[in-house]
């Protein structure tokens, strides 16, 4: 019970690490439905620049978001080598276009540190916390901040 590794207090978490806008990020694995290769999208009218369009995922219409653009980086020029991560949050399914997906990272929940406070920008607002990995670190993405908001979409 006193052991710090007690599973009831410290959970084992798994993250998928990815690269977007040249930086390392990660998304909790439970929020990811699948990972697929880039395929052409159907463009949506009147949409924000980071909304690439929609794809058909086995009969469902899924919007695709350029993660790099959403986080404030340069827009990704999608090619065959780019990857779409299909994520599900609050019953909404959204695909995120990223540059690449690297590995699955297993960490204890106490490894996730709070984001050090600094000046805010589009990226820091979307970060839940950071995880040190070796010499480097990776940032946990808060998916809810990425969701296209319906009133925004209509405007």
């Amino acid at each position, binding site marked *: 019970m006193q052991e710090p590794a007690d599973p009831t207090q410290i959970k084992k978490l798994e993250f998928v690490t990815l690269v977007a806008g040249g930086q390392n990020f990660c998304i909790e694995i439970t929020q990811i439905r699948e990972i697929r290769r880039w395929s052409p999208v159907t463009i949506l009218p009147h949409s924000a620049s980071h909304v690439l369009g*929609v794809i058909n995922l086995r009969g469902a219409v899924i919007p695709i978001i350029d993660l790099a653009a959403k986080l404030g980086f340069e827009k990704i020029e999608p090619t065959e080598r780019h990857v779409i991560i299909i994520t599900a949050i609050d019953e909404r399914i959204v695909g995120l276009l990223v540059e690449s997906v690297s590995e699955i990272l297993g960490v204890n929940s106490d490894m996730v540190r709070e984001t050090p406070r600094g000046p805010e920008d589009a990226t820091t607002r979307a970060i839940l916390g950071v995880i040190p990995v070796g010499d480097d670190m990776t940032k946990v993405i808060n998916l809810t901040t990425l969701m296209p908001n319906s*009133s925004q*979409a209509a405007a």
Partner: protein
Amino acid sequence: MPADSSILDTFFEECEDLIVALTEGLVEMRDGDADDETVNAVFRAVHSIKGAAGAFALDELVGFAHKFETVLDEVRSHRLETDEKLLRTLQRAGDILADLVDDARDGTPANRDVVDPVLADLQSFLGEETLEPEEEFVFEAMSLGFADEDAANPGYKVSFTPGQEFYATGNDPVLVIAALKELGPATVTVDDSALPDGIEDYVWDKGYLTWHIEIGDIATDLPIYDVFQFMDDICELRVTPLDTGAEAPVVGLDEPLANVASEAEPVVAIEEAPAKSTRAEVTDSTPNVPSPPKGGESGDRPAKKTATTLRVDPERVDRLINAVGELIINQSVISQRIEEAALPNSSELFGDLDDYKLLAREIQEGVMAIRAQPVKPLFQRMLRIAREAADATGKDVELVTEGEATEVDKTVVERLADPLTHMIRNAIDHGIEAPDKRKAAGKVQTGTLRLSANQRSGSIVIEIADDGAGLNRPRIRAIAIEKGLVSSDAVLTDPEIDMLLFAPGFSTAAEVTNLSGRGVGMDVVKTAITALGGRIAISTVPGEGTTFSITLPLTLAVMDGMIITIGGQTMVVPISSILETIRPAESDISKLGLKSELLKIRGEYVPIVDLGEQLGHPPTDKKISDRILLLIQTESIAQCALAVDDIFDQRQVVVKSMQGNYGSIVGVSGATILGDGKIALIIDPDAIASGPGMSSHINASLEGDRSHARAS
């Protein structure tokens, strides 16, 4: 609520059915084509609600139903004259009963201000002497009867023929007869005349026996119906009062009496053991009096057919519909693949593919039919709304409904209730004039409101037509200017003025009444109809009335669409809004101002809307004459020509909502999946046609509000 919620749910479901039966019966009574059976049906509906409500201790419901039932009992025994006043009260009582059921379901307290006057009205028909004490609601007490009515009711004769299903569901006639015997001294005889002569004709599970039970010393037949409460549709049941006057035994036409019964005994004993055991308990305390002719033959209750409906969780149907949608998509994928394969025309595969298409379409139609429901219950609710609205405004209005059997998707029926309510109220409040004004205009004093539904090639048209004064266009315009909906120098055509009724915040009522006039009604109506993929149109003739027509798609899940391309993207335009497709000649196009262009068609000029521009695509250099125009009809602008790059095909598409994962987009009503697996957006022609370029004189606030309403 202590009761098991699933039982309670069943109770409320049954209440709904009973209230439908009740409303139907009351309408028949009002129209004067009711017979005794109708009154009986109404009475039984109220009684069943009361009985079940008692089991759940829903006291307010029981109290009201009891009073209602007492009045109905007077009516059916012809002690009360059915005049206009009584019928009106009965109708209102029916409405209140429905309210109370709703209240009980929602667990909200009843609105005493509404209930009490009706209760008082009901009481007024009963007079003082029939004022019954409250404890009469206790059901055990019922069987004891009312002492003062004993003389008039020596008892009842129950003829009871259990059907096959009665036995199959594990019911036992012995228990039924035992329960009947508890009600009073009973004489039980069995009629085995239906038994086949030879054993070879004998169907083992068929019910051949009829029991005649004469119960004495019982004032009403209610406890008898209580006994049969859960079996009345699986057995033939006839309850007729015994006549005091005819003491002398008269042999009935088809009813062998006690002497016949003893004859029958051996046969019965062979056929069925339970029958024998009941025979042993036969008592003979009341004279065997066959029913009077009136109660016997003409009062014959037709055996109720077992309703062969199925209650299914809508979730399951939705899953099926989704799967069928996938099937349709899959079918178009396969078609496309086969076309790409460039097989020889003689290939048998094409024939098979056609079969597959037909089957897929048939399955899809079948599945859609599961969701289809007649608009009848919806229309019946409107009868009530109209009644209340007429009462509140002091106008004489008759609501005539037509095409009640028209079937529409369940969701459509559900979501139409609010818009229709608004429109009926509006028509009565604003459309139909007060009786004296109607008289002055030389019209019949009673206004007529016609609510009709009919199917027109793939869509449902619902019309609400009043014979009132018609729209007052100058006034509508003045109000719209006053409210800042249009600028004062705008030149509006008559249809445009009419459409102002649907602008948010528009209200013609001089003062806000509690019925209508909050100025939200028609705006909400339009939003709701648009959300269903429908359109609404107004036509009005001054002095003769106004007609609102709502056009709705038959189903929400599949529609016929025209596949088009614009700016390299494939999109779908609903066929229902396309009047024709035109490849325009240079000479048909005229410039209007800097950018706008007009299409000349059959001597009329129609504005051209560039679809690409409306969707935010960069302007193309292509001339209009190189493109294709779709002449579309919308509610906001009578006609407009939608410029697209090319048209391909006309096919059935499965509508996928964008709302769930993305949100709504102006100008796009949904998406569909094409044969190649790509997504094509479905255009909302109304939003496109009334886009920023088009609403030059209708204030932008209208647009803004609409898109806001869609987003929410």
